[in-house]
């Protein structure tokens, strides 16, 4: 298993850089990963990260269209917040596994 150090803490990650243990996550760590991904975190970002973490912890599937029901932002804004591949980027920063869009 690979490891990475963020904000002075060593984190277990998979070969794509996703956390294998979401409980290792802190806001300071999130800020550092975000920097790597070229994202500047605002309060809205943190609200979104919390939402994603809660969903993941509840065992629910994370999807792009589910974002519309988050009550935080709509999908278009979500794309602006995490440009490129928003779901992949946001889950990486949120310290949770990459959504599998299961088969």
């Amino acid at each position, binding site marked *: 298993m690979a490891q990475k150090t963020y904000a002075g803490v060593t984190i277990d990650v998979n070969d794509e850089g996703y956390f294998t243990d979401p409980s290792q996550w802190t806001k300071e760590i999130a800020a550092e990963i975000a920097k790597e991904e070229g994202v500047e975190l605002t309060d809205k970002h943190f609200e979104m990260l919390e939402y994603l973490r809660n969903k993941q912890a509840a065992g*629910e*599937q994370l*999807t*792009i*269209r*589910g974002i519309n*029901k988050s009550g935080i932002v709509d*999908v*278009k804004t*979500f*794309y602006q917040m995490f*440009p*490129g*591949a*928003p779901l*992949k980027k946001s889950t990486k920063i949120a310290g949770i596994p990459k959504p*599998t*869009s*299961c*088969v």
Partner: protein
Amino acid sequence: MKKLLILGAGTGGTIMANKMRKDLPREEWDITIIDQFKTHYYQPGFLFIPFGYYKEADVIKPKNNFIPVGVNLLYGEIDKIDGKHNKVLLKDGEVMNYDILIIATGTRIAPEETPGLKGELWHKNIFDFYTIEGSKALANFFKTWEGGELVVNIADMPIKCPVAPLEFSFFADAFFLERGMRDKVNITYVTPLSGAFTKPRASKMLGNLLAEKNIKLVTDFFLGEVDNESKKIIDFGGQEIPFDCLVSIPIHTGDPMIERSGLADDLGFVPADKNTLQSNKFKNVFVLGDAGNFPTSKAGSVVHFQADTLHENLMCYIENRPFTSSFDGHSNCYIETGHGKGALIDFNYDTEPLPGSFPFPGLGPFGLLKESRMNHYGKLMFRWIYWHILLKGKEMPIDSQMTMAGKKME
């Protein structure tokens, strides 16, 4: 008299009606199955219709052919489930009480939820092949089409039978080649996934097949809207792809009744335990197949394997014993690759599709994760098996739990 109520007489509901009627004494248990439609569709057959390989008559039979004697089949629309009072309300005002409820209401496409998808070009230049109407309209369109940009797009996951859009693309390549017009048709496969498929080994194998057949692959594309005027699909990030013919796999949701009943997750599916199949909300409610939020394929093979678990666990529940069966997410899909060949994948919640042979180690006759003629015959034979064995809940020579025997770790 106790009551077992089954919602939905599709693949899952029908199998359960057959299995449970055999085990529950008629003098103690009344079994009723409700559905709003009278026709049972062999849904895997829809894929074959646009290319003229199957006709409508090949994929339909009356639902009541498959419901055993001793089970009440009721045609009607469900208004909602009242789980607190163990009741199901029908739209015509009838109230059905139950001791045990099985939700097997499936999933449906919801093209109306994407702006422009169900617009003026719907079933003119934009088609689905997940309904009988869509696949027939596309068959008609292909008869006279002179070529152009053919775009196959998955709007978002999850979808029914996640390999079907790939099979469609492979068929399209073979179909236009055989008609001598492949050079006039550009095929582009546009998916929200990061590769041709979700799991790494299968994604690589299927991605190679796309490249071999000169089908362009666009990944990480989440459909935001369809511009009917300029004939383009546009993703949420603004990326545009032009089409002359769009074959769309629209987003999927559960039956609207699920949401009315307050039982739906964000996508309209019913949250349930992925191993026991018991609802998260009510202990006497069980969920089967596409209607559930299970993290595996929405596919007939999954329903068929789940039915074995549900059958066993329902008997445990009725007899007040702890559940003894745990569903492992087993899925088994034949993948048509065109020109009379096919591939096969077999996997579960934890094990991705691996190469090897199936169902007998070393012998096959089917090859896993590779193309062969035998795999194609397997898919064709399956239609007969579906109508005659599977729906009737009879034994098949395939374990409902996935086995590692015959699979090779590389």
